[in-house]
């Protein structure tokens, strides 16, 4: 069966919430039923088929063509299946995602993988702020799963992240791993200011020494065999990360202004 495909008819003026269009939500619905689902474009309620041309049948595999940054909440709370996005995605991509895979060929807005619980998200372009963070009012960010960003990420990557893996092959902005509770973030490029700000626990893996604030404590350089396990586990997601070989890393612990057990590992090249 061919993938159930939603092709955006024309650029949108306002953002729309696409949370209703997930493999789980569309399972067992006919094309007519899917076409009649109501989405909100600004204050206006619109049918899905007013916004998208719909084709294909396999609801376990969704495709969004001509996608733009106005498509918010794509893949929100999905539990299974796969979503491919040709183009860009809006905010809250994979919000609360509990399983399945999302592959976005373009860029995304802020809060991608926000409160994600499980599954895989691959962003081939760049992503905005608060990747893997927490939605407003929530005290824990990403709770599990894996996010791979081939491009760059904005500020506050993994803010309040509780568990899971984020791999960024490009650069990350300021406050990377801020208020991080646990989990692993890897950045192959550079990170901005205040990496690990208010970090409780967790690991921020870097390949270039960042400028760190005074409450991150230098603990020396060490050979850490566990890195071998970590690098091997990257192989299914990112060849760039899997090609890391050095088990030698400079270790920083902090943020001493908070619980202080977060670690920043700067891999020696």
């Amino acid at each position, binding site marked *: 069966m061919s993938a159930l495909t939603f092709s955006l008819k024309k650029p949108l003026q306002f953002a729309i919430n696409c949370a209703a269009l997930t493999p789980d939500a569309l399972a067992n619905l006919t094309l007519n039923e899917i076409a009649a689902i109501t989405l909100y474009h600004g204050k206006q309620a619109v049918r899905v088929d007013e916004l998208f041309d719909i084709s294909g049948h396999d609801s376990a595999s969704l495709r969004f063509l001509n996608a733009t940054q106005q498509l918010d909440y794509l893949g929100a709370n999905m539990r299974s299946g796969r979503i491919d996005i040709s183009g860009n995605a809006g905010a809250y991509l994979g919000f609360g995602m509990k399983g399945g895979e999302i592959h976005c060929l373009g860029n995304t807005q802020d809060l991608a993988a926000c409160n994600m619980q499980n599954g895989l998200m691959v962003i081939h372009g760049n992503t905005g702020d608060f990747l893997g963070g927490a939605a407003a009012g929530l005290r824990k960010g990403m709770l599990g799963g894996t996010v791979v960003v081939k491009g760059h990420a904005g500020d506050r990557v993994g803010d309040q992240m509780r568990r899971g893996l984020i791999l960024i092959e490009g650069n990350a902005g300021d406050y990377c791993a801020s208020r991080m509770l*646990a989990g692993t973030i890897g950045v192959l490029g550079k990170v901005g200011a205040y990496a690990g700000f208010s970090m409780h626990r967790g690991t921020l893996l870097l390949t270039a020494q960042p400028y760190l604030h005074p409450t991150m404590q230098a603990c020396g350089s060490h*050979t850490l065999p*566990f890195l071998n*396990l*970590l690098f091997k*586990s990257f192989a299914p997601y990112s060849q760039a990360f899997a090609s890391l070989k050095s088990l030698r890393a400079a270790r920083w612990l902090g943020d001493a202004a908070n619980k202080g057990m977060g670690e920043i590992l700067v891999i020696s090249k």
Partner: protein
Amino acid sequence: MIINGIQIDDTFAEAFNMRATRVIITAQNLKWAYHAAHAMTGFATSVIGCGVEAGIEAEISSELSPDGRPGVSILMFAMGSKVLMQQLETRMGQCVLTCPTAAAFAGIASDEPINLGKNLRFFGDGFQTSKLIGGKRYWRVPVMDGEFLCEESTGMVRAIGGGNFLILATSQSAALAAAEVAIAAMQRLPNVIMPFPGGVVRSGSKVGSRYAAMFASTNDAFCPTLKGVTQTELSSDIESVMEIVIDGLSFDDIALAMHTGIAAICALGSASGVKRISAGNYGGKLGPHHFKLHAIMEIEKP
């Protein structure tokens, strides 16, 4: 049955249900992996006095080990799950945590996990960190040489202990030489260990004793120096008996190990001084698993 001039008795080895686990120990090099493994499997010859029976199963190459360093796999057997858990934790704490550069990983999958590093982590006094990698939790405990890395749990499975056979020879040296040949062949097999020193037991036991405090005592029927005063199982030309005890993860694993060991001895021929192969049992009343020597020697090796 006679193979190459060596008589195979029409008898059986009697074995018991046990609980088992496997742990993989890695280190900077094989030397230090063996140091940890030897310590962990030390004083683990028999459940009668040691709580567990343990041994080194195989070497693990750095390509196949979890952390890319060379290591060894250990099998550990006990009569019950509680004892196995206690012994594993104690031995891990005293023998692997303490060993320079050593790390420990689960070596067997099971629906019944038992603690490996779950409680050892508290040695870290709050500085320990965990990592969930590929769905498995690992603990990194800071120690004076760097970090002790340990998987949180390993698996516990049902297994069999007490497979055995006896080597009856015309001299002590002949019996021991044959036993060494058998052990060398059996050590190449997976899923089994021979837990006694060098894999060989000289003090096979019978159930009970004339002393009330003893529940096992010397197997006088197979003691060559008692031929004239006990109901001996030995003919006049037998001067020494060695026993090889095998614990394994399944009946087939033990049967194959027994076959391999006995076949290696039979290949030496009767000129080696070995005259008979027998086995230890309790009349079939105690252990549910019976390894019949004739049937075992008729199995086709895979």
